[in-house]
C-alpha cells in the first residue's frame, strides 16, 4: 500500500504543470528522466494492482511474455522523435504519455520481470542495448533537426545519453556472462 501511495504521488508530482514544463524543456531530461520516472511510478503502483487482481495477471500474463512485449512496445514508441514532439504540441498525446508509461509499461514490467527466465531477461536488455545504440547514433549523426521543438545541440546530447545507457547495459550483460554468482556464495 505504501508503495502504491509513493508511486501515485510520484505520478501526480510529475503531472503538475510546472514540473512537467521544466522537465520537458530539456530534451534529454524529457526522455531520460521524466519518461523513466513515469515508468517507475507505475512500477511502484503495480504491487497493489497485482494483489487486487491476481487472477487477471495469472491468466493473461502467465509466462510474462505478453507483459514484457507491451513494455517494449510502449518504450519503443516513446523513443520516436515524433512522439516527443507531439507530447509537447498535442494535448492528447501528452495525456497518452502519462497513461501509457506508468500503466502500460511500468505495471506490466513489474508483473513480467519476475516471471521471465534469464534468457528472456537478457534478450530484453540486449534488445534495448541495440535499440539505444541505434537511437543514439540517429540522434548524434542526423544532420537534420529531428524534433522541431528542440535545438540540434540538445538532440546530440540526447544521442550521447542513449549511447551511455547502452554502454551501461553492455557492461551489465558482460558481467552476467562472465561472473557466476554461485562462485561467491
Amino acid at each position: 500500500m505504501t508503495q502504491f501511495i509513493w508511486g501515485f504521488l510520484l505520478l501526480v508530482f510529475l503531472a503538475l504543470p510546472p514540473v512537467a514544463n521544466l522537465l520537458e524543456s530539456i530534451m534529454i531530461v524529457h526522455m531520460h528522466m521524466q519518461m523513466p520516472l513515469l515508468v517507475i511510478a507505475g512500477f511502484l503502483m503495480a504491487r497493489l494492482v497485482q494483489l487486487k487482481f491476481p487472477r487477471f495477471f495469472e491468466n493473461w500474463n502467465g509466462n510474462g511474455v505478453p507483459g514484457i512485449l507491451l513494455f517494449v512496445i510502449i518504450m519503443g514508441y516513446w523513443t520516436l522523435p515524433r512522439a516527443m514532439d507531439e507530447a509537447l504540441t498535442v494535448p492528447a498525446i501528452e495525456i497518452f504519455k502519462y497513461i501509457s508509461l506508468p500503466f502500460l509499461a511500468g505495471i506490466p514490467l513489474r508483473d513480467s520481470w519476475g516471471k521471465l527466465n534469464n534468457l528472456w531477461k537478457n534478450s530484453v536488455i540486449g534488445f534495448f542495448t541495440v535499440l539505444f545504440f541505434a537511437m543514439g547514433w540517429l540522434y548524434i549523426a542526423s544532420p537534420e533537426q529531428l524534433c522541431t521543438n528542440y535545438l540540434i545541440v540538445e538532440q546530440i546530447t540526447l544521442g550521447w545519453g542513449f549511447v551511455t545507457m547502452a554502454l551501461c547495459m553492455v557492461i551489465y550483460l558482460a558481467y552476467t556472462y562472465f561472473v557466476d554468482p554461485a562462485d561467491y556464495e
Partner: protein
Amino acid sequence: MANNKKTLISLIVVLVFGVLLFYIGTDGFRAYTAETARVIQLLEDKPKFPEVMLEDSNEEKYPISEFKGSYVFITFMYTACGTICPILEMNMGQVYRQIPEEYVGEDITFLSISFDPERDDPETLKEYMELFYADGETWRMARVNDDGELQHLLDEIGVIVIPDGEGDFAHNSAFYLVDRDGYLMDVMDFTDVDAAAERVISILEGDKGD
C-alpha cells in the same frame, strides 16, 4: 493449459495494439518525425497562403497576393544564419537556374522570406541577394514587418522558428510552391534540387499544354 491459451490471446492482443499504435502514431509508417508529419498534413490540407505585407530589397512594399496569376517558389530564412540558410538559398538558386528562361518572372517568381525583420532590412537583404546572384525581380528577398502577420504566416505554413538565445534561430526548412490562385501546392525537400526543379518544370509545362 487454459492459461497458456489465454497468454497466447493476450500476446496477440498486445501485438495488434503495438502495430496499431505505431501505425497511427506514424501516419501509416510514413512519418517518424513531426516534420514529415507536418508536410504530409500540409499536402493534404493545401491551405491558402496567408496574406502578408512584404518589404523587399528594393524597399518596395506590396501584399503577397500581388503574385496572383503566377506560381511562387518560396523559402523561409534569415540572413545572419550561418548553418542551414546558405545551403537552402544556394539550392534554391540551383532550382532557379534549372527553370527554362521563358517561365521565369512570367509564370513563376522566386521569393525568399526573412523571419528576422529586425536585422534583415532592405539593405541587408540586397547584400545577401548578391551572394546568390538573385536579381531582385524574378528572385526576390523580402521581410514581413508586421509581427502578428509574420507569426500567423509561420503558424499556418508550419514553419517552426526557435530563437536560441544567442541571436540565432533553429528552424525547419523546405521549398514551398504556391499555385496561381495563392494556395499551397507542394512542399519539397530542399536537399534534392533536381527533384524539385523537375517537379516545378513539369507543372509549368503542364499549364502550357492546356
